[in-house]
């Protein structure tokens, strides 16, 4: 049986990187006595896969990982036990059964993610900060070309079509961005392009990055229909 766990990461735990979050949850599994399944072999490890790593410095309300269970466990019990075994800075929000199909893991089906990007309140006074009221004009462009660095090459791509939705909020901007293995754009690329559009230096340390949610695309025939990863699971009674 497979289960999907949704958690939020906040406060000082934004300084804990992805690999350490994985290690953290491996230990939580033991402390909370969650009946997680192991791989075979000489050094068995827990069957656990994260939908999308969250970088150091980011906070999130919608992080996901999937696990294989060796025995069923009640959803609300599991959430409670994991939080009791946890620390301030990570809160488990849900624990749901998902389809056993291999192609349905969070990592495979991830299609989009929401972000909220705001300005930090401790930016130096001399800093040139972006004016979010001009974001609409920025998005009004036909295309937004950026240079995308990969391990082997760099190429120019148009990220405009990968920004699925956006909204200017009181102190920043909300973005719904393509995510996952086929199309992917990170919020820092968008903000870099925005700063360039405003003709100001793109100092990314002025922003607070917060991931809100992650989605799968359940649409058919090229029609996009985003469903949160959480909604693809159901509570275990």
């Amino acid at each position, binding site marked *: 049986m497979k289960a999907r766990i949704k958690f939020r990461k906040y406060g*000082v735990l934004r*300084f804990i990187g992805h690999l350490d979050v994985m290690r953290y949850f491996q*230990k939580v599994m033991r402390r909370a006595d969650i009946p997680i399944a192991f791989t075979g072999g000489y050094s068995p490890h827990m069957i656990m896969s994260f939908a999308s790593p969250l970088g150091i410095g980011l906070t999130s309300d919608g992080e996901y990982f999937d696990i294989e269970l060796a025995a069923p466990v009640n959803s609300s019990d599991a959430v409670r036990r994991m939080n009791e075994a946890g620390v301030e800075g990570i809160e488990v929000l849900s624990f749901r059964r998902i389809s056993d199909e291999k192609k349905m893991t969070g990592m495979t089906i991830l299609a989009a993610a929401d972000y909220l990007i705001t300005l930090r309140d401790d930016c130096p006074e001399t800093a040139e900060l972006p004016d979010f009221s001009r974001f609409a004009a920025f998005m009004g462009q036909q295309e937004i070309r950026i240079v995308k660095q990969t391990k082997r090459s760099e190429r120019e791509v148009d990220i405009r079509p990968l920004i699925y939705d956006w909204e200017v909020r009181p102190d920043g901007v909300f973005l719904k961005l393509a995510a996952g293995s086929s199309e992917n754009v990170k919020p820092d690329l968008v903000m870099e392009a925005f700063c360039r559009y405003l003709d100001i230096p793109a100092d990314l*340390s002025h922003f607070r990055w917060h991931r809100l949610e992650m989605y799968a695309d359940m649409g058919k025939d090229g029609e996009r229909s985003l469903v949160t990863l959480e909604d693809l699971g159901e509570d275990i009674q």
Partner: protein
Amino acid sequence: MRKLALTDEILLNIEKPARYIGGEVNSVQKDKNKVDIRFAMCFPDTYEIGMSHLGIQILYDMFNRRDDVWCERVYSPWTDMDKVMREKQIPLFALESQEPVRSFDFLGITIQFEMCYTNILQILDLSGIPLHAKDRTDEDPFVIGGGPCAYNPEPLAEFFDLFYIGEGETVYDELFDSYKEWKRSGEPRVRFLERAAQIEGIYVPAFYDAEYKEDGTLLSFTPNNPHAPKKVRKQAVMNVTDAPYPMKPVAPFIKATQDRVVLEIQRGCIRGCRFCQAGMIYRPTRERNVERLKEYARTMLINTGHEEISLSSLSSSDYSDLKELVNFLIDEFKDKGINISLPSLRIDAFSLDVMSKVQDIRKSSLTFAPEAGSQRMRNVINKGLTEEDIINGAGQAFEGGWSKVKLYFMLGLPTETEEDMREIARLSDRVARRYYEIPKEQRNGKCQITASSSFFVPKPFTPFQWASMYPSEEYMRRAHIVRDEFQAQLNRKSLKYNWHDERGTVLEGVMARGDRNVGKVIEEAYRLGCLFDSWTETFRYDLWMKAFENTGVDIAFYNLRERERDELFPWDFIDIGVSRSFLLKEWDRAMAAEVTPNCRMQCSGCGAASFGGGVCYEGKN
């Protein structure tokens, strides 16, 4: 939500920000207004090293059990953070509260190895605490040192208000109660030190005067305060089974060097190797009850979520109930994906059997510590391991499927001859030959014998405390002799030889047996920029040499000089239970290459039985 001492901008631009944020699983938060004593417990090295240390976990837990004490942790900021803190004038803070260390009542520093001494000064300096105890005021915490290097605290005497000599479990409660009384009394700082000096095991350096002879050796070492005892008695907890042990050790977010549950099965060692300080200062041997250990293993694994458990002791094979404990760990935890790590096991049929159960034979290697290549040299150091033991042990291992062996040696031991050095290579080759005695079709390709040598540094309170060392070039020369001899061996393609950097050895020697004059070299080295001296990437031998030059402190006096049999040593005011006459007798036996039986075979009357314990004592009572 907890507030951090450092801004995002700083934390996002340094290596491993998790080193500085605290908040780990099982870390302790308290209301600072509801405690009387705030204690900052420091391991003066990186977070990852410090978090791996059992002693701090024990004291952290023990102190925090008291409602009136809040013990927090402090580690050395790595060089990148050190730079930022100096530039921005950010005072060093404790992880839990993120508040400046200077506002604490105590700063406790565990001193585990000599090469951390400049880091101690960094901790004081970044905290804004005067480096010299005599310059501290009511605004400063009391700086207290402990750990193995506190058995010769003299090089650090100026920098500490007090030292705790021995195991922390015994008199800290008394010290804290006495501190509270002093605090209520409103008396000056020195009055607390006077109270502390009367507690057994506490050494207040300012209360003693050291006088030197013309040749630089110690003439006398006497108390200058009526409250200070002539001798300071080491502390040892005699009932280790009922001593406090942390059931909820702090489990870090980032990977610590030792990221696992540690079961300390015993203290002390029956072996009596003559180079080994731990083997003398932790006498008498005391075992923890096996049933208690089983209970601890279960509880600690659940409370931490660690996926590995390890035994800790100086010589696990000597623990009486080892079989029972190891079989329990395997039966109970092996199927739950818990790794079982069994260090310091003697290689025999039993250990090979359990190791084949807990590790992948093809990938893992077996470790032997012959310490010396020739039998003569092993007799000198009293390492009761014969060549037959090694070859037979390796042979059994090879037949059981292992093909990798690690061998640990020391170079530069007292009386060492060129023949002794060459025997290191030859012994390694004989181990390899044993492997190739196995028919080709039954063995698993080539074997891999890795020999490593470190250079011997004489330590206080060992029979070798009288031994002289060598100049830096001589260590190099000896390593080259061994290396060349490896080249001449039949199985040289299966052999690998590594040796440790010789430059640290000389410094370690000066610090280990130094007196109060060495303090100024440490301070000068720190002033010149030395920090993290045990890390190859930061070790600055050139600056250290400059510090010796600038202060006029002579390395040869500490390292090369012959010490007289009756010389008064800087550490002689400490009473470790083991008598000086026993150490001297052992030194003489070493010179005659005579072996002394281990404590279980026969009591040699070392004096540690005065603590009312140990295998010799238990035998008689």
